[in-house]
């Protein structure tokens, strides 16, 4: 190819047209995935994502509804390409995998991966991942908080063919169906993933046929190079150095008195971004370990958050990132450590990476978020014997920025789930909610105040109900920036009908009886800047709104 021919082929306009199409294709896949999935967890929790990859396994375009999925398919594609080299793949093959120790995340997240062929030649890979309602194991939903090894968590799938040249692998389908509690729903969601992969494959094939496959491949490479260049340029604007942060999770749900340490050293140098987790706790007995794909998602999220949001998201953005994850630690556990509840771990890893940068990038990184996504589950039986399970995910406050207050009760960083309407819960379960209210004084004090947590009170109308509580920030508060105060710690208590009170130590499984009440208070986000510097009108408004009490205004803000 002559130089001028190469130049003409990669004319910047065609490159931009292709970029827009790739984003459109990823969005169309995602729309198909969300629309055709059966599970509420996908429809309301948006716990699913679609991606296009190059044949080398680099992300070309991605549609994620929640950032925890960012880049998590990368190790899976890598593994599949290792087990099934490209040369052995055929048109109509679809591969499937979920094993966290081979590159997955946790067992409910199952990936489907489909190579795309044009003229008999593979030119891209189309993939979709969905959090399934159940993958078997010791507990419905396959996220048992009391698991101590991965074998209890559900069915482990190594890289396998889900479809072979367009035909289902009936052996695999039979095994999956036999091992999950709701086989029809699981198959329905897998077929939704298949539909999404098909949309991606069809449109990528059309695109490559229009462009010519060599041309398409060259453009794909060019797009990755550009995002890399933009990301490196943005990283270079961060002062070089190594920035450290330490934070803790409360415990692993099994050994309640043992906190979990996260230590990170983020080195930003010459357009690269290296995160070293040396100093973090050894792996834990409970299911809060996080396999490397989770730490990668956290680092990718942090890089996307501190660089220019207009940079097209693809593998180029991730090339400057490297991770050092000590083997046998909570961020890189050894098999068969349990991993299902890794969400709070990924949140804390993300918080640490961002926290390390908050002093050097005060305009872009706020004070600590509550860093809590409280998970509650209630299960039991109605009077007529029918079983019910209901639960919700509850947020705390966000951290205050340099020039803006934190937001009260809002999902932060890598998660983004909706809460459960009180009316939905009361229709479905013998539970009454007595209040849902902003938690006064829970936002970290500061020139900019941290976001408030929430207080919620439940009453059990009919026993026995098995109750699971998975919290964080009960023992370690979010930390302020530039003299801002810490957010309030989370707190929860069971008030028994006989008057006894049991404080919940961050994680708990308990049985609730009729008349028992549970009061939860989620953590606040931290403050930014000295509280005494807070604008007095803003403080007066906070007092009028009851977000800050007169007592706290005096004690922390120096209000006369």
């Amino acid at each position, binding site marked *: 190819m002559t130089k001028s021919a190469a130049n003409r082929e990669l004319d910047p306009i065609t490159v931009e047209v292709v970029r827009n199409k790739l984003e459109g294709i990823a969005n169309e896949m995602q729309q198909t995935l969300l629309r055709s999935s*059966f599970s509420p967890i996908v429809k309301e929790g948006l716990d699913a994502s679609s991606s296009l990859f190059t044949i080398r396994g680099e992300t070309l375009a991605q549609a994620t509804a929640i950032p925890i999925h960012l880049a998590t398919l990368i190790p899976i594609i890598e593994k599949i390409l290792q087990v099934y080299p490209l040369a052995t793949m055929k048109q109509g093959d679809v591969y499937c995998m979920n094993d966290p120790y081979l590159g997955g995340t946790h067992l409910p997240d199952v990936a489907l991966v489909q190579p795309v062929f044009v003229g008999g030649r593979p030119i891209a890979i189309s993939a979709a991942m969905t959090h399934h309602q159940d993958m078997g194991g010791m507990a419905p939903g396959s996220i048992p908080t009391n698991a101590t090894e991965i074998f209890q968590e559900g069915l482990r799938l190594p890289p396998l063919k889900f479809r072979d040249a367009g035909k289902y692998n009936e052996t695999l389908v039979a095994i999956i169906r036999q091992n999950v509690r709701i086989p029809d729903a699981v198959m329905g969601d897998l077929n939704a993933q298949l539909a999404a992969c098909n949309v991606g494959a069809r449109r990528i094939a059309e695109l490559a046929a229009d462009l010519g496959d060599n041309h398409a491949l060259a453009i794909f490479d060019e797009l990755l190079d550009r995002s890399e260049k933009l990301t490196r340029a943005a990283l270079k604007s961060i002062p070089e150095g190594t920035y450290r942060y330490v934070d803790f999770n409360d415990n692993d749900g099994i050994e309640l008195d043992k906190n979990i340490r996260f230590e990170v050293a983020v080195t930003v140098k010459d357009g690269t971004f290296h995160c070293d987790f040396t100093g973090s706790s050894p792996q834990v007995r409970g299911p809060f370990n996080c396999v490397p794909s989770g730490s990668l998602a956290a680092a990718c999220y942090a890089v996307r958050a501190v660089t220019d949001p207009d940079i097209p998201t693809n593998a180029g953005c991730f090339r400057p990132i490297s991770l050092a994850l000590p083997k046998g630690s909570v961020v890189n556990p050894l098999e068969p450590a349990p991993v299902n509840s890794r969400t709070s771990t990924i949140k804390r890893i993300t918080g640490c990476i961002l926290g390390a940068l908050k002093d050097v990038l005060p305009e872009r990184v706020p004070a600590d978020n509550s860093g809590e996504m409280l998970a509650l589950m209630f299960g039991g039986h109605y009077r007529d014997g029918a079983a019910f399970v209901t639960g919700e995910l509850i947020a705390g406050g966000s951290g205050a920025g340099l020039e803006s207050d934190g937001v009260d009760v809002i999902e932060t960083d890598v998660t983004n789930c909706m809460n459960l309407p009180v009316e939905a819960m009361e229709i479905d379960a013998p539970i009454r909610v007595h209040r849902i209210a902003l938690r006064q004084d829970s936002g970290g004090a500061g020139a900019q105040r941290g976001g408030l947590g929430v207080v919620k009170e439940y009453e059990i109308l009919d026993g026995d109900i098995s109750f699971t509580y998975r919290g964080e920030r009960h023992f370690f508060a979010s930390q302020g920036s530039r003299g801002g105060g810490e957010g309030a710690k989370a707190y929860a208590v069971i008030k028994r009908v006989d008057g006894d009170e049991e404080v919940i130590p961050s994680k708990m499984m308990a049985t609730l009886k009729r008349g028992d009440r549970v009061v939860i208070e989620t953590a606040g986000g931290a403050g930014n800047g000295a509280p005494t510097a807070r604008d007095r009108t803003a403080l007066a408004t906070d007092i009028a709104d009851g977000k800050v009490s007169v007592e706290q205004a005096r004690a922390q803000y120096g209000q006369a």
Partner: protein
Amino acid sequence: MTSAASQRSFEIGVDIGGTFTDIVCREAGGAMHVIKVPTTRGDPSEAVIKSIAEIRDRWGIGAHEVTRFTHGTTVATNAVLERKGARIGLITTAGFRDVLEIARQWRTQVYRVVLQPEAPVFLAPRRYRKEVPERLDATGAVLTPLDEEAVVRAADELVKEGVEAIAISFLFSFKNPAHERQAADLIRARHPGLMLSLSHEVDPAFREYERTVVTAFDAYVKPRVDSYLARLEGGLAQAGISAPLQVMQSRGGLASARVARDRPVRLFLSGPAAGVIGGQIVGASAATDNLITIDIGGTSADIALISRRKPMLRSEGVIAGHAVRVAMVDVTTIGAGGGSIAHLDAAGGLRVGPHSAGSEPGPACYGRGGQEATVTDASVVLGYLDPDFFAGGRLKLVPDKAAETIERRVAKPLDMTTAQAALGIHRVLNTQMAEGIRLVSVRQGIDPRTYSLVPLGGAGGIHATALSRELGIRRIIVPRIPGVLAAAGLLAAPIEHEVSADFATPIKGLDLAALRDKLREIDKRAAQLIAAEKVEAAAVTITYSADVCYIGQSYNLEIPLHLDDPDPAGRLYRDFLEAHDRIYGHSVDSPAKIVGLHAVHRAGGSDVLEEMRFAPIDGPKELGRRDIMVAGETAFVAAVVYDRDALPEGFAFAGPAIVQQSDTTTLVEPGWSGIVDAAGNLILTRDGE
């Protein structure tokens, strides 16, 4: 009155846009008159009143001859966008005043870490939210009676704070409205002038945040909409017009001003809904049932679908970034338009939008100091736009500025010719718009290739063939009068009232008697509303629908109810499965349930406007030739320029061609042919189809 003149009858439609107020006036069986007057932003009703004098002076139409006055308004929308709604109070069940502020704890910008509030707290900051003891359970049974003293105290405090309206939202009010009614009665008795919005009336469905926020929005815009429509009604009366004022609702149906004032939250898409009905008229005039309309303006493009001659609706819309649970025509806005700015990113890549040059200073070719290269500048460079005939000649474009800016901003840095750069800008923008249309189509479960494209807005015609090529669309309908379609849509829309109710039951073993009872109950309310419109009962058609979902699912589809079917429940279930399959790509035989019911009472309306007959003007059809550059060509080609107004029915031509008219320009690329149909539409088809 017995004179011949009194038998004349005129209907007027007035649509208020950002720049112009469009007035369409038609006489039954006669011609349709159109005028445009500048919008009066301070009080939009001024322009409307002025236009009545203009109608009288220009066409000799007397006020008493006006039998119907229809209106699309932006007042409700602007009150929210500009945050100029009323100060309101919110009264809730004790323990739940913060539901409005906590919302669904969800955020829209996932990669942003310094967050901004997502919930519309501005509607009622915490100090204006009061709680009163009262509680119902999930069946609507009273657990705690309403504390009347607390209601009075809360209302008194709020009034003292200067609120103009109060929203009341109690838990489970959709099961049992007694407490909300009781509270409203108490407040009305004490503060007679105060406006109220009650959640069980505004949105009787479960999920307390969604119901509360839509009720608060209703209260927030109510005083503004009320005074605006009162002024307008007063002005019309003063001008001698006794015809009822009807206002377009977001669903695409008209309601009397009285009802509109009562439920203003249904007016957020008043203008766009009229535009979609306008698209429907165009489709009907070209005997086409399935349409994609794309209205391309300066800063954005609005996409809507018309399927089987009905606008597609969505059950939840978005206003100023906030989801509101009120049915609307499904109009999707993407940030791509004529003013979209082309620029190079730090890696030297070409990007188009999402930033726009707007109208001030606007594209460089406007000659108002704009320094950015925009899509409109590219259109000038490519020869698509006649610099002397832009917007009907109202704005003279400066081609040198367009060329110079594209040269400087894009061509030179990318080492290409100005024309290549301009073509590139178009290709990128067209790709974005095509992907936008694809996404809307996938969401509604339709295949765009089986639809016709209707380009609207000043820039729609420029991009129509390129978009169709991209999407595999084979037929384009360019309306004759795209500039005033929204106003024409007002004349074509039916009067429509929708009433809904909570009704939760599995479809299996459906108690038909209970269903009919519930429908009779909501029918009664809908009948009262439509009776106030002074239409004959015989002219009213009634349709019912049910919100249905699989048991265990938490989102639902609205499915028509056929009570005349021998097995209404069976039919409903089958239709649900079919809709599920169409929209979501699959369905299974799992049990489903009804969660809510709707009755829609409709009267009048016809998307066939006979008055849209046209007569070509005398004059040359061809205005000359212009060199244009189109995709796939390496050099400029000569295109014939046609005067749209002079083209008669049956006139046919082949691309490359440009068709000019005062409010838009249509580019017919090579490979496309055009023909003028009986209604004056320009039908473009791809050669070889």
